[in-house]
């Protein structure tokens, strides 16, 4: 027959063991393993590197196969168009680093070999500062001149929007990325593309 005290003590001891074990399991330290940079890992459900890469690849590949491209090349007597990346505005509900998305866009466009690129407005300021510095510091043979820049034909701009619907532990996130290619001379819009991503995120109410 079990006695009162033995049962109580057993419970207390088991509870303390359970708590210690639970703390131990929940705080098992850090582990790091290397993964391929193009692998898809979704942790929080937020916009991540995979979204940035896939959206850039899909949208720009679509962009370069549309009729505007041949029209511009013909108008330039067979020369590839020169593109400058304008602003990609983050109008979503997350603090997205748009510069990584812009880098992905540039990578896809450059690797396609179908367009030339010029530096954006911010980079141009930096480059002009360097040229100014060369004017007074570099030798005449090596110093670069002002006024020799290549003007862009087209500007790529865009927005990242999101709509979030949430209730309790469930969230549905809808992202829409819109990109536009505009002729800098005529301000005609040559191409408009968009890509939509929908994510369903569930959070558990309890854990050990």
């Amino acid at each position: 027959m079990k006695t009162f005290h033995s049962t109580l003590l057993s419970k207390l001891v088991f509870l303390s063991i359970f708590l210690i074990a639970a703390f131990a399991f929940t705080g098992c330290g850090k582990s790091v393993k290397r993964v391929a940079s193009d692998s898809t890992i979704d942790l929080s459900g937020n916009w991540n590197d995979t979204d940035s890469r896939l959206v850039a690849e899909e949208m720009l590949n679509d962009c370069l196969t549309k009729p505007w491209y041949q029209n511009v090349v013909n108008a330039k007597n067979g020369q590839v168009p020169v593109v400058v990346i304008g602003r990609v505005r983050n109008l979503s509900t997350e603090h997205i680093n748009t510069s990584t998305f812009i880098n992905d866009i540039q990578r896809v466009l450059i690797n396609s070999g179908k367009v030339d690129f010029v530096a954006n407005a911010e980079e141009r300021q930096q480059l002009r500062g360097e040229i100014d510095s060369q004017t007074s510091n570099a030798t005449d043979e090596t110093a670069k001149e002002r006024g020799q820049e290549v003007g862009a034909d087209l500007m790529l701009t865009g927005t990242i929007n999101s709509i979030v619907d949430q209730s309790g532990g469930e969230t549905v996130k809808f992202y829409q990325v819109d990109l536009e290619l505009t002729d800098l001379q005529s301000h005609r819009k040559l191409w408009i593309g968009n890509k939509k991503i929908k994510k369903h995120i569930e959070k558990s109410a309890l854990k050990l």
Partner: protein
Amino acid sequence: MRIESYFRINSRYLWSYSPFSILNSQLSNEASNVQSSTLNSQLRTKHLFLLLAVLLASCASPAKLRMERISKPIGEGNYEAAIENIEKNKKKLYNSEDALLLEFDMGVLLHYNQDYKESIKHFARAEEILDDLYTRSVSNEAAALLTNDNVRPYRSYPFEIQWLHKIQILNFLALGEIDGAVVQSRRALLAIQALREQEKKFNESGALQYLIALSFEWQNSEDDARIAYDNAKKHFETSYTPKLVAQIPQNEQEIIVVGYAGLSPVLGENKFWGTYAPDGVLYLNYRDANGKNQTTVLVALGLGGPGFSGQTMTIQFAIPKMVERPSQASAFLVSVNGDAKLTEPVSNIKSSMQKDLENGESTMLLRTAGRVIMRTIAASKAKNLMQTGNPYVDLVLNLGTDFGTGAMEQADLRLGSAMPLTLQLIRIPVEPGRHSLKIDVLDQWGRKTGSFAEKAVNVKKGEKVFIFAPALR
């Protein structure tokens, strides 16, 4: 088998309104077997003290120490020293359960110190932690049942979550990152929506809606700005609607002074002590807000049970109460090119904290009272078990058990350590160009208690320049 049994007891305790009868009935059924003790008393004592030591070690909170360490440099306006102090003594000042609080305090202090980029990082981490805390840890909740609420991860009060978004929006506005401020505003709207769902009586901040509106306005999102301004009018925490809501300068260049005035209230312990009599009647004594001892009688049926017939136990427990601090700063007198105007309070932590504490009081009281009664019953049983027959040893054991159970009971006093009493605002439309700005700190009687160094402010066409004036004293 026994572990399963414990799970059952605790999980039922977690979700049931009348849980004590479950444990009680088990204990009382077993009480009849007390006399047939088989365990060695020394072993029993060792086990209990070991458990007590583990529990006591896990439940100490550094809330008071934290407040003592950083309130002095904050009062002197030396935010850098407060930040350094936290960085050097992180482990001493914050338990692992206080991760949210650490990020929150750092975010606030870095904001006062005008390091807006770093402040943004800390608040972003605080948001991530908050998101993760949606999932509750069963082990932490179980530990809290045995010790106190300090072993649960700090989840913050609704007013603090709203302050997090307020300061984060201001961080982006200070940097002139309008898109960032608007993103944060949208995140704030999502947080407000979640709080409306979670809280029975959600005390919504008009000031947060006002800052959201300001961000949308600067981005030229007129419809969103109008909706947020309308919401702000509905939800201002102060008893009046600030005049600045009715006078919104649209798309003009402005100097906007954001002041943080006074010292926010802190949390102190409201101690309850009393006796738990047979038949489930709880006689509770407590000290009211005026310092007078009061007595109340609560009917707690089902908590006694046959095993406790004829026994009266002493219990004590503590819940947090708001303690105000005297402030030397109540408003700011802002002079632009010699033209002086007073700031307006748009947010008052005292009133929002009071409402949040009231909203959570019944749940906290139920949880605390339940925990203490359960622990007191267990302690009473444990005392019976440990009786050695030697009156001196028994006295020491009884006192030790009472001390241990009493020491375990600590109110959860955790709260943001660097919060002001009020958020003050004034918007001054100006012409593009250079302006001279002077800010004086005033107390509640309008007397000057300090001032910020006069400086020149350059305002470009269409620009809104934010100037921050923290006076937490």
